[in-house]
C-alpha cells in the first residue's frame, strides 16, 4: 500500500511553486516596480491597490517581497545545489572507501564545523566590496562552505549502511569498478535521503541569508531582500508594523513549507529514520 503525502504537503508544494514562479517571472508579471515611490502612500496599511501596504518611503511592499524572493531563492538554491554535489560526493567517498580516507575526510569536515557559522560568515564579510555580483559570489561561497559538512555527514551515514548490503557485494563480485558501484548501485539508494535533506538545508540557507541581510551585509540596498526589509521596517514598528510583518510572514511561511516538505519526503522515503 502506498502512503499518502497529505493535503498540507501539496499545499506547501503549491505555495513554493507559486513563489518560485512569481520570483522568476517578476519582470513580466503585472506587479509594481519595487523601486517606485508612490507619493502620499508612505506607511499606508494594506489596501486593494497595494496588497501588502507601503513602506516608509511609499514603495509597494508586495512587489518588494516578490523581488526579495529572487535574492533569497537564487542564493539558497545555488548554494544548496553546489553543497549537495560537493558534500554528497565527499560523503559517498568517505562512507564507501577504506577507513583511512574516511578518517581524513571526516576529520577535515569536522574541522569546518568548529567555527560557528554566522561568526565565520562575518569574518568573510570583511572581504565584501560594494559590488553586488562579487557579494553574491562570496555569499554563495560561504553558504556552500557551511553546508558541505552536514550534508556529507548524512550522506556518509546512508552510504555506510547501503555499502554493506548484499547487492553491493554482488556487484563487486561481478567485477564492477568502484565508480560504477558508487554511482549505479549506491547513489540511487542514497539519493532520496539527501534530496529531502537538501530542502531542509535550503530552508536553513534562506534563514542565514535573511540574518545576513538583516544585519545589512547581504546584497546592497537598491535590490530588495527580505531580511533588509524586516530590519528597515523596525523603525516604524509602532506605527506601521506591516512593513516588517509582511516580509516576515512570507519568509516564515517559505521556511516552514520547505521544512515541512523535506520532513514529509523523508518520512515517505525512510519511515524509520524520520528523527530530525
Amino acid at each position: 500500500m502506498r502512503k499518502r503525502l497529505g493535503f498540507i504537503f501539496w499545499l506547501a508544494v503549491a505555495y513554493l511553486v507559486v513563489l518560485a514562479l512569481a520570483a522568476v517571472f517578476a519582470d513580466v508579471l503585472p506587479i509594481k516596480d519595487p523601486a517606485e515611490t508612490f507619493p502620499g502612500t508612505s506607511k499606508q496599511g494594506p489596501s486593494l491597490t497595494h496588497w501588502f501596504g507601503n513602506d516608509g518611503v511609499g514603495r509597494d511592499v508586495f512587489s518588494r517581497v516578490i523581488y526579495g524572493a529572487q535574492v533569497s531563492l537564487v542564493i539558497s538554491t545555488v548554494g544548496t545545489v553546489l553543497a549537495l554535489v560537493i558534500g554528497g560526493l565527499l560523503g559517498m567517498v568517505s562512507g564507501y572507501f577504506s577507513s583511512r580516507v574516511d578518517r581524513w575526510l571526516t576529520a577535515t569536515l569536522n574541522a569546518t564545523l568548529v567555527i560557528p557559522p554566522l561568526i565565520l560568515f562575518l569574518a568573510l564579510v570583511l572581504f565584501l566590496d560594494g559590488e553586488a555580483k562579487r557579494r553574491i559570489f562570496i555569499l554563495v561561497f560561504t553558504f556552500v562552505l557551511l553546508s558541505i559538512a552536514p550534508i556529507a555527514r548524512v550522506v556518509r551515514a546512508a552510504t555506510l549502511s547501503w555499502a554493506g548490503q548484499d547487492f553491493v557485494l554482488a556487484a563487486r563480485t561481478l567485477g564492477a569498478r568502484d565508480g560504477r558501484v558508487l554511482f549505479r548501485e549506491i547513489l540511487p539508494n542514497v539519493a532520496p535521503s539527501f534530496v529531502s535533506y537538501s530542502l531542509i538545508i535550503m530552508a536553513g540557507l534562506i534563514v542565514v541569508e535573511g540574518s545576513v541581510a538583516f544585519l545589512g551585509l547581504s546584497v546592497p540596498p537598491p535590490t530588495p531582500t527580505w531580511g533588509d526589509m524586516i530590519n528597515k521596517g523596525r523603525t516604524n514598528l509602532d506605527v506601521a508594523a506591516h512593513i516588517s510583518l509582511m516580509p516576515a510572514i512570507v519568509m516564515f511561511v517559505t521556511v516552514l513549507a520547505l521544512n515541512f516538505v523535506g520532513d514529509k519526503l523523508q518520512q515517505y522515503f525512510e519511515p524509520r529514520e524520520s528523527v530530525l
Partner: protein
Amino acid sequence: MKQAVRDQLGRIVAVALLATIAWAWFWRPPFSWTFGVFVLIGTVGAGIADGRYALRRIAGVIPVLVGVSFVVFALMASLPGDPAINILGPAATADQIAIVRTELGLDEPFFNRYGNWLGGVLTGDLGTSIVLREDVADGISRSMTPTLQIMAYSVVIALGFAIPLGIWAGYRQGTKTDGTINNVMLGFLATPNFVLAVMLVLFLSIGGLSVAGNEIGFRVLPAARYVPLGEDVVLHFKHMLLPSLALAMGQAAVFMRLLRSDMIATLRLPFIDLARSKGLPTRRILWRHALRPSSFTLLTVVGLTVGLLIGGALIVEFIFTIPGVGAYIFLGVTQRDFIAVQGGVLVISTLYIVVLTMSDFLYLALDPRLRGREVGARA
C-alpha cells in the same frame, strides 16, 4: 581508595560543578576563572574515569586549536586593501603609512607575523583594536558576560519548554496531543530568530498591531538596552527575557523533537513495563525512570548547539542593543577593524571547541555506562 573514588565519581563531579556555580554566583569571580575551574573539574573527572581516553582527546584538540588559529590569521592577513590605509584614511602620506605598517608589523614575512601573533595570543595578548584603540582581550572579556548570560538563559528556557513537551509528546505518541505539540514546535523551528525577536518586540513591548483602534498586544516588557546583573536583578531579567526567548524557541523545538524520539524508544523497553506492573504512577515512570536514559542524545546536542547559539546571540544582541561579543565582532566588521574581528573569532571558536570537549568529558565522568567506550558521536 582509588576504586572508592571511581565508584562515586559521578556524584563527586556533580557536587563540584554545583559548588563552582554557587561560588561564581556569590563571589562573582572573573569569567575566565569560573571557566577555568569548570575545565579543570571536567578534565580531572575524565582523567580519573578513563585517563587514556582523556589524554587522547586533549592531544586531538590541540592541533584543531592551532589549525583554527592559523585559518583565522591567514583569513585576516589575506584581506584585500592595506590595513594601514584603513586606519589612516585615504588622505595618508606614504611616510605615515610606512610608520603604521611597521607599528602593526605588516612588513615582516607571513610566518613571522603568525608566530608573533600566536605568541601574543598564548600570553593573553590579542593586540590593540584599530578603531576602538582598546586592548582586544579586555574588550572581549567585557562583552563576554552579556553574551554568556543570554546563552545560559536561553538554554534554560529551551529546556524548560522542551523537557515537559518532549516527555508528553513521546508518551502520547501518535495522538492529537502529540501532533499539536509537534506542529507548533515545527513552527518555531521555522521561525528565524530575528523574525521571532521582531515579533516579540511588536507584541510584547510596543503594543502590537492596532486594528480599528484596538491594540492586539501588550506593553509589558522593555525592548532594548542591557542592565547588568549587579546593578538591578529584577530589571536585568526583565530586559533579558525577550532576547533569551527569541533565541530559545528554535532550540526548544530541536530539543523537544530529539527528546520525544528518544522517549518513544525508551518507553518500549521492558523495564518500563516492570515499573508499570509494580503499579508506579505514570508521572513517576516518565520523569524518574524514562527521562534519564532518554536524555543523553539531548545533552550531546545541547553541547553542540552552543555554536548556533553564538551566531543567534549576535543577531539578538544587534536587535536588543546588548553589548555582547556578537555586537563587538559586528562592530569590528562594519568598521573593518580586522584585529578585533580576528580576536573575537579566535576566542569564540576556542571556547566552542573547549565546551564541546568538556561536554564529552562530563558525560564520561557522570555516566558510568560510558566508561571504557568512545563517548559521543564525534571522533
